[in-house]
């Protein structure tokens, strides 16, 4: 067996703007979050993002590659306070909920000799001509083992919609080398 469910967070109601997976077990090698989620957008704002171990300082970088169906866009920055996992240009005043599916993976999350790097695949389609296929990457320039992951909805005043689901898994490795 290699992939073990650790915890699930299912959004209830209409006020969740942030939540955390805490006390993450340290006996796995990799972590993966699989999410099916919506965001209710009331004001234009920043993108959905993650932070590790409650670190909100400028210790991160993130970059993305986006296909919109009509073009390709790349972007990113160093010295960030967060790692983005969705960069949809949320429309102010929108009352619609948009659907996104995400797989976020962090290899060697408990390895204290490595910076923590996240690889994220993200996609959404509203059926209204607004859609995107994303590839995100992010790094936390800290070799500490990850014990918590905080996920935050896009921008102030926006929130994860009811029934949005985030599942955290631990992934193990093998003692055989095959060398």
């Amino acid at each position, binding site marked *: 067996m*290699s992939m073990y469910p650790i915890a699930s967070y299912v959004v209830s109601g209409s006020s969740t703007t942030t939540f955390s997976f805490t006390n993450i077990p340290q006996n796995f090698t990799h972590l993966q979050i699989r999410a099916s989620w919506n965001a209710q957008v009331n004001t234009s704002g920043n993108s959905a993002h993650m932070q590790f171990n409650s670190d909100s300082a400028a210790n991160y*970088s993130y970059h993305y*590659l986006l296909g919109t169906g009509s073009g390709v866009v790349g972007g990113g920055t160093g010295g960030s306070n967060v790692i983005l996992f969705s960069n949809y240009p949320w429309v102010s005043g929108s009352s619609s909920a948009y659907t996104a599916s995400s797989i976020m*993976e962090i290899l060697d999350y408990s390895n204290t000799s490595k910076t923590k790097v996240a690889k994220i695949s993200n996609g959404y389609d509203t059926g209204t001509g607004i859609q995107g296929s994303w590839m995100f990457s992010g790094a936390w320039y800290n070799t500490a083992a990850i014990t918590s992951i905080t996920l935050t909805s896009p921008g102030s005043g926006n929130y994860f919609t009811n029934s949005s689901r985030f599942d955290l898994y631990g992934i193990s490795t093998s*003692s055989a080398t095959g*060398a």
Partner: protein
Amino acid sequence: MSVFIQPIYTQVVGAGGAATVTFNNIPQGFMDLIIKFSVRSTSSDSGTNWVDGSGIQFNNTTIGSMTQLYGTGVGAGTGRGLSAMYMGVVNSNVSNSNTFTTGELYIPNYTSGIFKQAILDTVAEVNTANALMHSIANHWINSSPLTSIKFLCGNGSWAQGSSFTVYGVLNRADVLSPTAPTIGTITDQAGLLSVAFTPASNDGADSYKVTTNPASNTVYGAESPVVVPVTVGTSYTAQVEAVNSLGSTASNTSSAVTTYNNYSSIATMRVTSGTANSITFTNIPQHYQHLQVRAYSMTTNTNANICVNFNGISTGYARHELTGDGASASSYGNFNDSVFTMGWLSSTSSSTSPHVGIIDVLDYRNTDKYKTARVISGRDLNGSGGWVQTLGGHWRDYSPVSTITLSQITWSPGTIIALYGIG
């Protein structure tokens, strides 16, 4: 939990680095392969943050082609190669320290007799506006089953800490009912039954289910042993089933074992008529952890010790006593003795007031320990004398205690001396 994704091999590069990492003898029993990797190069490519040219080889062949989509953090691009399979760029030794490129290679249908597609995505982060991420479609122009995979660092070597894990992926149709484990020994733990078993290799089990006969609680566990609550004083057998989503497969039935209470009476000696000059407990069961003797002695003896020995042996004892008589305290010790004692009968005789004592012998069956007894005893004669003692007895012998003898006084009717086992 599912066995659909199973780790097969893991390699982590040690000190000194490795130019290549190779997985040989890849099992052919899965449908697809996934390789997760976290890598860094020991070199810099003209002093930049990334090293290019890292590649992948199947079955030690150099053929392949690829199409890539990449992002740079400020733009995007695409490209194609027609001579080899490509791994993208990786963090160089001048990029942010301790920062490794993360990626995954997915190879569906790797044992089939058709050409192989291998989809790869990687991210190589640095703390600047620029970074590199790749999505690559690789093509192995060979219809052989894939038996080995080699990862080659494009410049320099894979740095220490670079890791690769190969996972096998099964589809639903490939998952089989689990293989039965081999039942082991079941042991009594005073109201609990510990059931040991050996899982079959790659048994496909998600968990193990333990049942007993007669029926008690059914307990699921992830590994051996599994502990099941049972009723004491009952003979049980046990059986273990390997369980997955398709069902379960049971082991053979174990041998029987009888469980005992955590604190149970072994034997009770009573003097109901006449007298007794010694009281012996024989054939003491060897499945408890400790023993306790609780003695209620009716005797008219005076100035005498109630002596105790083990296994009928009269050598190798030591004893020490702390005594209070209501007026003064005293102590006594002796070694190389033939007995230890449960207590002293004072100079005042009584036919109505008993002498009472408790002897504890811990780890009585432990063959790595000498045997030590702790005794508390006494007799109060309501102002006509009395005696309270705490005593220690020591028997310099590794043998398990199988017999306890009390002697050297005359016990009268009304005497009750009981032996208990403690789990």
